[in-house]
């Protein structure tokens, strides 16, 4: 998704390829092969199965006080949202929400900066680059719970207190950075080095070329990295479990709610946290589209 996000509307495929493609797979403009209908049905079912259940819980979270965990809807009200933020028995939702947002912002900033620098570094081969690369992949595929336990034990052994802004921050970075680096790989592979060389030819220093040329050109890709950083941190669970210390992040709060709470306030929490995710996703995608559009019109005008 990174590669597509990074070079969204203006891919070189769009002009040159589309006519050939239609010719090859769908022989005539009007008629479609039967596989089109089969695959279209499958695609539609996939999307319905992807979103359907989520929308069920959003709808069910708006029930009134009689509400249960399944359909049919029993009345409609905001009761469970109020319940969520006022009741003690549902835990410290407000506090954990607050912490999760703060943590996600910190993780996003670090992820963008570190991934960008690593992306610059990996453009050229250097001794040991393969080692660093596989370390990054390893950090991605390692079981989160095991890494979390290791981090927790490490802090214990060093006599440090585990908390969300130290050990959990590090544990989450071990999850978001590999994604950030992979996205940067895709973004960098589309970066035309001519831009950078032109900057050098015009007498730019290394930092000027990065600051004035690369960052503006790569901006959509960096927004994509930020999107990954924020959402992956905000929803991270397995690695935070053993490292967050005494104060929960939001996913940990949801996890404890799944074990004790059997009321629609669980769904209400799901609705609230998904709205936050959707806002972040929408803002990021919007920003990318906006940058691309601005560029398109600048290029034309």
């Amino acid at each position, binding site marked *: *998704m990174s590669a*597509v996000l990074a070079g969204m*509307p203006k*891919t070189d495929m769009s002009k040159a*390829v589309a006519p*050939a*493609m239609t010719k090859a*797979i769908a022989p005539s403009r009007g008629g479609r092969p039967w596989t089109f209908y089969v*695959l*279209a049905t*499958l*695609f539609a079912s*996939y999307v319905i199965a992807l*979103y*359907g259940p*989520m929308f*069920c*819980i959003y709808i*069910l979270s708006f029930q009134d006080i009689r509400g249960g*965990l399944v*359909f049919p809807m029993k009345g409609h009200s905001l009761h469970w949202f109020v319940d969520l933020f006022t009741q003690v028995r549902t835990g410290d939702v407000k506090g954990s929400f607050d912490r999760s947002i703060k943590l996600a912002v910190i993780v996003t900033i*670090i992820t963008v900066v*570190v991934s960008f620098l690593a992306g*610059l*570094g*990996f453009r*050229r*081969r*250097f001794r*040991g680059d393969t080692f660093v690369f596989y*370390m990054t*992949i390893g*950090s*991605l*595929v*390692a*079981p989160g*719970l*095991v*890494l979390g*336990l*290791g*981090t927790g*034990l*490490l802090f214990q052994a060093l006599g440090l207190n585990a908390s969300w802004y130290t050990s959990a921050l590090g544990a989450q970075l*071990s999850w978001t*950075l590999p994604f950030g*680096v*992979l996205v940067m790989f895709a973004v*960098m*592979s589309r970066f035309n080095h001519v831009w950078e060389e032109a900057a050098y030819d015009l007498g730019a220093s290394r930092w000027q070329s990065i600051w004035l040329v690369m960052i503006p050109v790569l901006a959509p890709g960096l927004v994509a990295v930020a999107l990954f950083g924020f959402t992956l941190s905000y*929803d991270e*669970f*397995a690695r935070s479990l053993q490292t967050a210390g005494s104060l929960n992040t939001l*996913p940990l709060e*949801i996890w404890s709610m*799944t074990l004790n709470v059997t009321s629609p306030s669980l769904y209400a929490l*799901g609705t609230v*946290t998904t709205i936050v995710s959707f806002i972040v*996703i929408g803002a990021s995608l919007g920003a990318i589209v906006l940058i691309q559009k601005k560029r398109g019109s600048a290029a034309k005008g």
Partner: protein
Amino acid sequence: MQPNPNPSRANLAGWLYVSPLVLVLVPFFVAPILVVLAASFFATDGFGGLTPGFTFSNYIEVLNAALTFKLYLATMKFTMLTWVFTLIIGFCVAYFLVFHVRNQLLAIGLFLLCTVPFWTSNIIRMISWIPLLGKEGLINQALLATGIIRQPLEVLLFSDLAVVIAYVHQLTIFMIVPIFNSMARIDKKLIEAAIDTGASRLDIMRLIVVPMSKSGIALGTIFVVSIVMGDFFVVKVMSGGGSASVVSAFYEDVGVLQYPTAAASAVLLTLVLVAIVSLILRTVDIRQEITR
């Protein structure tokens, strides 16, 4: 990749750029793994205290337990089932988007539609199956209403079926994205040439599309396999405690402070995972795949 005019300066510059990454990954990936490795050889007092030492007893205990074999079997079962379904669905969705959707912008829009849930909470997406699959859930209600069944089906939720559904629901995106990327790079002239020389649609699929999507499939497989094998949450919640996997047993061990046995089991799992991933990596150079 560009050639280096001056190797030692390039090395230094390269390391300078990746040093922040290394500075995060060493304490939060390499060190924790080493800690778990060390803990797997320690003795325990049974109350969470660790006695530094060197003993294989944790490994012997894990390997001798009849449960271990069952856990690995269950984990493998979930992994295989999830892999098969995510691969089939992922391949079809990617193929549809790349080769059947004529409008490029629409294809990207539909692709993003598939990816949006990836950026939302996994836990919430899993819980959201409860109103559907539960004993009084929508599917049972519908089946009862149409008279297909008389008793509500109990196997829908809190069963192995529910576990696999939740996995496929969450992980198909990890197949779609890399396969989509490989397919989108297939030069359409190649397919045209194949048609001009008389290839059938099946031939095109068999000789061009599938082989050229292999790297995407391999990449997706690494994601799906490593996530399913490392998961405990889905298995715990969706099976209702009825099933267990290697990591969910690990979680229980940690819960009762049996760190060394848990660590030994984690080391074994990591070895299995590394073996599988390196087998897959022999068929594809992911670094080249990503940078290309």
